[in-house]
């Protein structure tokens, strides 16, 4: 009887010892898993999964990546915001998102609600993070919380087969559209941000209030100004095709159903690279300008692997990585100091991106989005007036 118990005790203690060894082993080799959550389209998710993640892993072997996308458009960033907010509301200690890629609106809201970690001062690329949109986003001070992964410029793309002299300004665009009804398209405000950007550009032009709308503070007294601009947009829309989204505009341009449209430059370049787009379609910026829209990389305040997240973002912000991956492979404008990135580009990349829209054009005609209150007010007025 005692023998039996002795044997059982021996087996049990052997089991416990081996288990304990297992625990010790797990703790000895510190492996970090970075959860990268991306509120942007599949091509952005791909970049992190196939190029940026593995590139970083080469230099830091102990790091594993868990890259997920949450969808497209504003709703995707909102999903990330909801997730992080929920963790803050329940006072959870280690949040399960380390690096998040979100839109300007979502990032500005997150900074306002104290959900983010101020990581930028601690990274080596801090001095490369320049540009007004890294300091303020929709009127919120985001300095130190965000690094743009890339910049997305909205432009007017035209088909040179039908458009011999592309418009250089909004006035010329209106004249052209009136002479060529139903040959210009944008996606309104519901299908995608390119259409919202076009609307914002229109309001800037008609009201002349770019400084006030992009810097703030919010002045409800200016409402008649943007309402009048939108009444005129309603008139303009009579000769215009409203498409279902960013892709809808590009699709129709490609098929020759329309001859000009408001598009994202990076999407245009990506479709050309994929062979889905007629390579002669050319982007152009019209004065006074069209908005630029960055995708921000942020680190949630209580992220489990906060410091590694900052190191990863540091890696993505380096000029070499920006040149090789961001610009050359995907046709995005660099997120960090373009002056440092440009010299590293191949001539082909320079041509693809900067031939039609030169850095000079960008400097003159690339505008900021308005502050949050103005942006929402303009969108609401569009819904009420233009429909």
């Amino acid at each position: 009887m005692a023998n039996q118990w002795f044997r059982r005790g021996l087996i049990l203690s052997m089991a416990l010892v081996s288990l304990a060894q297992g625990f010790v082993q797990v703790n000895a080799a510190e492996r970090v898993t970075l959860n990268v959550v991306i509120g942007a389209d599949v091509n952005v998710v791909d970049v992190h999964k196939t190029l940026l993640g593995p590139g970083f892993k080469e230099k830091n072997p102990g790091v594993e990546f868990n890259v997920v996308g949450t969808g497209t458009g504003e709703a995707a960033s909102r999903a990330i915001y909801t997730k992080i907010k929920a963790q803050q509301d329940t006072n959870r200690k280690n949040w399960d998102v380390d690096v998040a890629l979100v839109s300007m609106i979502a990032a500005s809201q997150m900074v306002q609600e104290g959900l983010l970690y101020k990581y930028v001062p601690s990274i080596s690329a801090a001095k490369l993070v320049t540009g007004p949109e890294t300091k303020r986003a929709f009127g919120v001070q985001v300095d130190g919380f965000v690094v743009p992964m890339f910049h997305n410029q909205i432009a007017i793309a035209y088909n040179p087969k039908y458009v011999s002299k592309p418009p250089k300004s909004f006035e010329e665009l209106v004249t052209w559209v009136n002479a060529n009804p139903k040959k210009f398209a944008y996606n309104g405000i519901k299908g995608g941000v390119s259409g919202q950007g076009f609307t914002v550009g229109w309001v800037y032009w008609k009201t002349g209030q770019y400084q006030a709308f992009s810097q703030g503070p919010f002045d409800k007294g200016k409402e008649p100004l943007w309402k009048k601009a939108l009444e005129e947009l309603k008139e303009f829309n009579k000769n215009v095709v409203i498409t279902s989204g960013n892709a809808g505009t590009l699709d129709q341009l490609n098929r020759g159903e329309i001859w000009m449209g408001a598009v994202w430059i990076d999407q245009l370049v990506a479709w050309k690279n994929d062979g889905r787009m007629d390579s002669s379609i050319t982007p152009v910026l019209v004065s006074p300008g069209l908005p630029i829209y960055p995708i921000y990389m942020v680190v949630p305040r209580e992220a489990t692997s906060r410091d590694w997240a900052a190191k990863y973002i540091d890696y993505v912000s380096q000029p070499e990585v920006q040149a090789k991956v961001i610009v050359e492979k995907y046709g995005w404008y660099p997120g960090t100091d373009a002056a440092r990135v440009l010299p590293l580009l191949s001539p082909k990349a320079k041509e693809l991106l900067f031939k039609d829209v030169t850095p000079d054009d960008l400097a003159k005609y690339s505008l900021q989005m308005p502050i949050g209150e103005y942006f929402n007010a303009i969108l609401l007025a569009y819904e009420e007036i233009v429909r």
Partner: protein
Amino acid sequence: MESTTEPLRVRGVEQILWIGLCLPPLLVLGFAFLYPLLASVWSSIIYEGNLSLAHYSRVYTLYRQDVVFTLGVALSGLVLVLLVGLPVCGYLRLRTFRTVEFLLKVPLFVPFVVVGHAMRVFLSPHGTLNGLLLLAGILDPQHPPSLATSWLGLAIALAWKHMGLAALLFMGAFRAVDEAYLESAQNFGAGILRQTKDILIPMAAPSIAVACVLVFASMLASFSIPLMMGRGSGPQMLMIDVYYRFGQHGDYATAGALGVVAYLMASGAAFVYLRNLGR
């Protein structure tokens, strides 16, 4: 002698056990459906901390056209389902034709998004349908119509998708009609259409009504198909507006108000369904 039996009643321990068995799914239902439903209804009547109908007034200002549009498209889709489904199912009841019956059920297995994309390509200005009509010389090649973005295109796409479910329900109801009635009608010389109209439909009317209600409620709530067949401007289906409201603006309150409006529209149909169940 007639014997009347009382319905069996569950008592005592057995009753407690059955309640225990039903409790988990009821709790899941309450937690995953009832609680969010009540929360969204509550959020739609609160504005800045006070009870208010401000969100409903915004729905009225911005989206009343869309409410009418959604109702119209759902009703048109339903009418299309009835116009095509009833005669075809009547024919299938009276003459067996397995291939057609199978084809009618195919839409059941095609995902909504796939239907939306297929219809978008099929019905677009330079799509398949217009291509065929062009060959037949019916259309003006300079100005081909675009069914894809119109209400008719939406109704066609929704009707196609729901045809599977409707056919299933209609066939079940028609098969339950006694052969004797049909035979007597045939003896009087009634053709297929006559038998469908005067015997099958009236006798299966309760089931057809239920099918109509289910199809209508499902069309009201359609999201993937209107999204895929998207229109940038003009009236939208309600679910697209709900998506825009919380996706773009994070405005859950107005999205909740839109949801309540949709519940009310569908609940009219659900009320009819429940009354029929009791019959």
